[in-house]
């Protein structure tokens, strides 16, 4: 995936450790999915790879670098826009803690 990965963050110990002026771009220090209630699950048999979900995802968590579309569950917030916009109903919203298979 052509995306920044989470890196470990060492808190500054003194004033000199704080960055002044410029700061690194694309710098993630923690995962960000704790507020999700429903998670999107892709049905790869139905998915035609039109990538509309990628276009409408506010969080940019649709990973298209592999053969199949994947969702980065470390950062998905579960808004459901992808499931609503999917033209072939290949994305379902499943409650967290429940199994995806029926």
């Amino acid at each position, binding site marked *: 995936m052509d995306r920044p990965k989470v890196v470990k963050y060492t808190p500054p110990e003194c004033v000199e450790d704080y960055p002044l002026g410029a700061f690194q771009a*694309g710098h993630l220090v923690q995962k960000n999915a704790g507020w999700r209630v429903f998670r999107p699950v892709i049905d790869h048999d139905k998915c035609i790879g039109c990538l509309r979900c990628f276009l409408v995802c506010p969080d940019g968590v649709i990973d298209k670098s592999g053969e199949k579309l994947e969702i980065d569950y470390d950062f998905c917030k579960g808004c459901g826009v992808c499931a609503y916009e999917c033209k072939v109903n290949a994305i379902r919203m499943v409650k967290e803690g429940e199994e995806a298979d029926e």
Partner: protein
Amino acid sequence: MSIKIKDVIHKESPMTQGHRMCPGCGAPTAVHQGLMGIDHPLVVINATGCLEVSTTVYPFSAWRVPWIHTAFENAGAGAAGVEAAYQALKKKGKIDKEIKFVAFGGDGGTYDIGLQSLSGALERGHDFTYICYNNQGYMNTGAQRSSATPKGANATTSPAGSVIPGKLQKPKDLTSIAAAHHIPYVAQTTLHNYMDVASKVKKAIETPGPAFVNILVPCVLFWRIDPALQGDICKKAADTRFWPIYEVIDGEWKLSYKPKKRVPVEEFLKPQGRYSHLFKGERSKALLEQAQADVEKDWEYILDRCGETWEPAE
């Protein structure tokens, strides 16, 4: 020139995952869609607002391009300064890349607080693009009304009650104000289809000289809608003519989207919690009629400017 899905789909957005915008917020979608089609190196100037505070919480940054934060009131001035420095370095031969400058501001930072610096930068003719992601209020501080808040909306500083039905004033037409600077490119759009934001932002960025794009995006907390309906509510805004989609190229007004049918504005208002007071009580009918009359009047103005006629199918 409009770009197709297949032109942008293989690209990556300059903003990564991991930002702290609310689930279903329209602003990051507008950023992703708008900047995905740009091939030039970008510098982003960000006014204070939701987009700024949630994409850059120290020590993390969701931007993968050079990014500078300015205060609420000076995104236009900040962009002008960065662009002027770039032009000076280019003249001296220290930079040979073709760099583009994009400023982002919310409607509070654009319609109200940053209007003077934006107006100044547009007038001085700096080569940059200003994108206003307009969610129609001050959402970062808790749903206060701004001068972009539509008439009748229930905001915390214009609350709907038994006497006053939400905000009393009409929003200002900032796109027309920007067009009145006679700059090369001005556009107004929303997330109503997949490629409109991408096409208009690409045009704006590639046009030499200043450009302004006003993008209506939903705020889930203020509009009180289901987060999944982000695209749907924007489509309704375009279909009910509440938010006309048009562009102004070198002073020539051009309507980009004409709805096929006459859809009443209730379709757009009904799903939103901020308008729920319009649908109950004795005054409901009069208030909705007023809302529809306002839409018709604004639509007539846009049609007149574009020199178009509109004949909806029955």
